[in-house]
């Protein structure tokens, strides 16, 4: 591993801008790292060396030309395969989309390219972002760089493993119920889910439209904030995109790094603790709270009594929307087609295609969602779940009357062994227990490393009111600054 792969994104961008290192050198160093370790991690589904080097050369040329470079120009990035990339295979981790070459770029892909960010390739994920372990990928699991026998979290486990494994300083994930925050926590990274509507969804292959948000992975809070600002902002192509200024997350990360949280009230959510939380997780979390207090924050207990209903509500809403979003994979316009031998009807071919092209978890959720939306059950399931969303949002609103941010462990446990929960959907779903409330309410939330438990990373989740994304960065940066050295330095060499 060269020094270039150990640099933060901010330092890399600075070096590229100053001309002390070329973007091509940075890119080649990361491609070499991928070549050296990815056969063990399986973080990437596609490595686009040619495209990456071309983007790097363009940055170097722009610098030579005296052009102003973006804040992350020349910095390599691992892009979750749920994000559509023109002329680069995009599968969303599914066999049904294997070989699909999109004719267009997602808005965030375009923004990354325009900012001079170097896209190294597409990362592995749970199929259609359904999962918490990346074991549900049609293309095999990804391994956690901290312990190859464990999961890297999910569904954005390819991106989290790539960044934790120093294959890229930055990664993009998407978070529907915790799919950025949970993998960030178990890989010892910073991962943020912006306010719903803060980052365009145009070109994200939809899992659950009312919940999906793309966000950054990085090894530092500042790096995550820099990436957040590149991808965020209003997009007329997404009707749910918020037409408001991007919260000043970079400035907040810088101000938080001074370690001063004076005047800030941090609410600790009572309901997100207790039984099921590993002692090591609870201990690291408690230690983090004392550090926040030491930084000048007031720490208070706060109760959000409907948070316990987030999991059932989520597992109705997300599968319902998914059952509809995934209907289009029918073997007519793109993707897999199975059984078209001239004897079968279209209806049969569609059903065989979907049966063969979707994995078990996807089918399970499609059936669950179909059930929840079907006549006679809609009111009792989907309708009630939408009401629970209202109740959870009210809980948040009440809590934010007295607190500036809320905190909890990001996930009840550290990374679990590959295969441990594969046959137990409910156990797998429990990994998202703490991240679901902010998802349902559309609020910004972030996971920041807060310690190790038996040598594995633990994350602390910070949640803030809508559009106050800057607060989560400020608190995270202050906590980050309170530790003597970054936890990621303790990750084993691969």
């Amino acid at each position: 591993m060269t020094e270039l792969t150990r640099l933060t994104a901010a330092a890399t961008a600075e070096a590229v801008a100053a001309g002390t290192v070329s973007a091509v050198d940075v890119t080649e160093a990361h491609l070499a790292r991928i070549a050296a370790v990815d056969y063990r991690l399986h973080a990437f589904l596609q490595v686009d060396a040619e495209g990456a080097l071309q983007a790097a050369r363009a940055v170097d040329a722009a610098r030579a030309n005296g052009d102003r470079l973006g804040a992350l120009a020349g910095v390599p990035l691992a892009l979750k395969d749920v994000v559509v990339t023109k002329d680069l295979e995009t599968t969303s981790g599914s066999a049904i989309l294997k070989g699909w070459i999109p004719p267009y770029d997602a808005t965030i892909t375009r923004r990354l390219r325009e900012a001079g960010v170097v896209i190294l390739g597409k990362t592995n994920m749970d199929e259609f972002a359904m999962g918490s372990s990346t074991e549900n990928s049609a293309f095999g699991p990804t391994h956690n760089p901290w312990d190859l026998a464990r999961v890297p979290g999910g569904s954005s486990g390819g991106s989290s493993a790539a960044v934790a494994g120093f294959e890229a300083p930055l990664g993009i994930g998407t978070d529907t119920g915790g799919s950025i925050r949970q993998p960030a926590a178990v890989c010892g990274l910073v991962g943020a889910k912006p306010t719903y509507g803060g980052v365009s969804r145009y070109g994200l292959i939809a899992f659950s439209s009312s919940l999906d948000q793309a966000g950054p992975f990085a090894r530092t809070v500042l790096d995550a904030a820099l990436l957040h600002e590149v991808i965020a902002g209003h997009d007329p192509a997404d009707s749910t995109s918020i037409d408001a200024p991007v919260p000043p997350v970079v400035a907040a990360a810088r101000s938080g790094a001074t370690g001063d949280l004076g005047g800030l009230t941090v609410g600790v959510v009572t309901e997100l603790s207790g039984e099921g939380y590993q002692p090591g997780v609870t201990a690291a979390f408690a230690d983090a709270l004392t550090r926040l207090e030491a930084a000048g924050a007031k720490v208070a207990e706060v109760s959000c009594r409907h948070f316990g209903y987030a999991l059932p509500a989520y597992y109705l809403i997300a599968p319902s929307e998914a059952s509809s979003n995934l209907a289009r994979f029918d073997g007519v316009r793109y993707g897999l087609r199975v059984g078209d031998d001239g004897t079968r009807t279209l209806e049969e071919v569609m059903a065989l295609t979907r049966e063969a092209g979707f994995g078990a978890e996807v089918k399970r959720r499609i059936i669950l969602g179909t059930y929840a939306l079907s006549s006679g059950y809609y009111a009792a399931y989907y309708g009630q779940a939408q009401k629970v969303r209202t109740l959870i949002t009210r809980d948040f609103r009440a809590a934010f009357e007295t607190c500036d941010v809320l905190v909890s462990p990001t996930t009840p446990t550290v990374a679990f062994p590959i295969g441990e929960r594969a046959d137990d959907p409910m156990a797998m779903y429990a990994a998202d227990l703490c991240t679901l409330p902010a998802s349902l309410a559309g609020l910004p939330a972030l996971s920041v490393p807060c310690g190790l438990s038996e040598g594995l990373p633990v994350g602390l989740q910070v949640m803030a009111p809508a559009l106050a994304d800057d607060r989560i960065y400020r608190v995270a940066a202050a906590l980050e600054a309170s530790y003597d050295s970054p936890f990621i330095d303790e990750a084993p060499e691969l």
Partner: protein
Amino acid sequence: MTQTLSYDDVIARYEPVIGLETHVELGTASKMFCGCSTTFGAEPNTQTCPVCLGLPGSLPVTNAAAIEFTIRIGLALNCEIARWCRFARKNYFYPDMPKDFQISQYDEPLCTDGWLDVDVDGQTVRVEIERVHLEEDTGKTLHVGGATGRIHGATHSLVDYNRAGIPLVEVVTKPVAGIGSRAPQVAKAYVTELRDILRTLGVSDVRMEQGSLRCDVNTSLRPIAASALGTRTETKNVNSLRSVERAVRSEMLRQAELLDTGRRIVQETRHFQEDTGRSRPGRSKEEATDYRYFPEPDLVPLAPEPTWVDTIKASLPELPSARRRRIAGELGASDRDMIAMANTGVVDLVAVTVAAGASAAEARNWWMGHLAQQANATDVEPAALSITPEQVARVIALVADGTLSTGLARQVVDGVLETGHDPDRVIDERGLRTVTDAGTLTAAIDEAIAAHPDIADKVRGGKVAAAGVLVGAVMKATRGQADAASVRALLLDRLGTDGE
């Protein structure tokens, strides 16, 4: 099944209840949720993009003009405009739907509770409108390998998504009852009136033959004096105004046959066939489809500002019914005249001709008479004739001032129809002016007298009736450009008799 029942038999025992669902493709420039063009007739799959192909990751954004057009329609149909409403997903698999769901409206339509009055045989029937909602159209499927181009017997099908995503308004009536034998005419009159309104509003080109106006007809029968509605069927594929009437009529007959023989009506979708005037049952799965509607999460709610709705309302053009009332007043036309003019398709033409200075009587005579005949002979609508109301008014004026005789006027009009030139140019080109010059006429009269000395003598001898031959000769010599009455007077004068 052979139909042995007569329509009168059916009406004697059953009361029909009808309902109409009309789909209207809006004439917006771009599609409902993407910027692709809506132009009809393009090469297949050349007007598609990630959104209207349903590519993974694409998202819809609503076309403002489609919302405005729908509100316009709702207001013209006397509907309430929702203060807040949403789109919903209607989930079902079909290859012409790129996302395998249709973005439509379910329990929150944009417009509700309106009405439309239609005239049938001089009587007004109020058709209540249940809802007007907005959705996206599907692509077009071509069935290959079967004998008829129909789905049945096809070996495979081909899909073109150019039409997918074009904004489609669905106008749904409440059940229309109490119209008895007139049910087929009411159905036709409703669709006709709706078509005229949509055309007047400028929201659609309403071409049934191109599918921009499509009609589904619900029909049920109940025994006279029964209160419960009978089982209804839905007839789709009704693609002309004439077919609307035929579809209701044939379905009434079909259902009556079944009921008469103690059989039950199956609630089903049927497909109208233009060639036979009958319908065939659709092939659907046994169980009812469960569309699993839910609010479209990729779109945000619509809340039309009341001030916006008021602005749209204020900008509505004069609607056909109001226009007809105004024109009837202006023309002094009776209901009977108006119906006759409407049936001939000349109401607007007559009105514009009058506005251009012609008398109502003359304008009506021309359009209902000679011009209607010419239109009929060439099998076009009078409005499609290549003569404008202004040109007709000019011809009428030229007759009034004596420039043209009635016979010449017809020749001028025919000349305009042939060439599209203005009447004055046709007159010049063809020399169709009335000959009023006394010298020319006298010379022609003298020639006629010289050519027929025996007849001239008879006239001089008091046999005035014989003068007709001489008048005819003069008219022939002047190629009809002389006024026959003047010729006759001049001739008699010349022969020294006053004709008494």
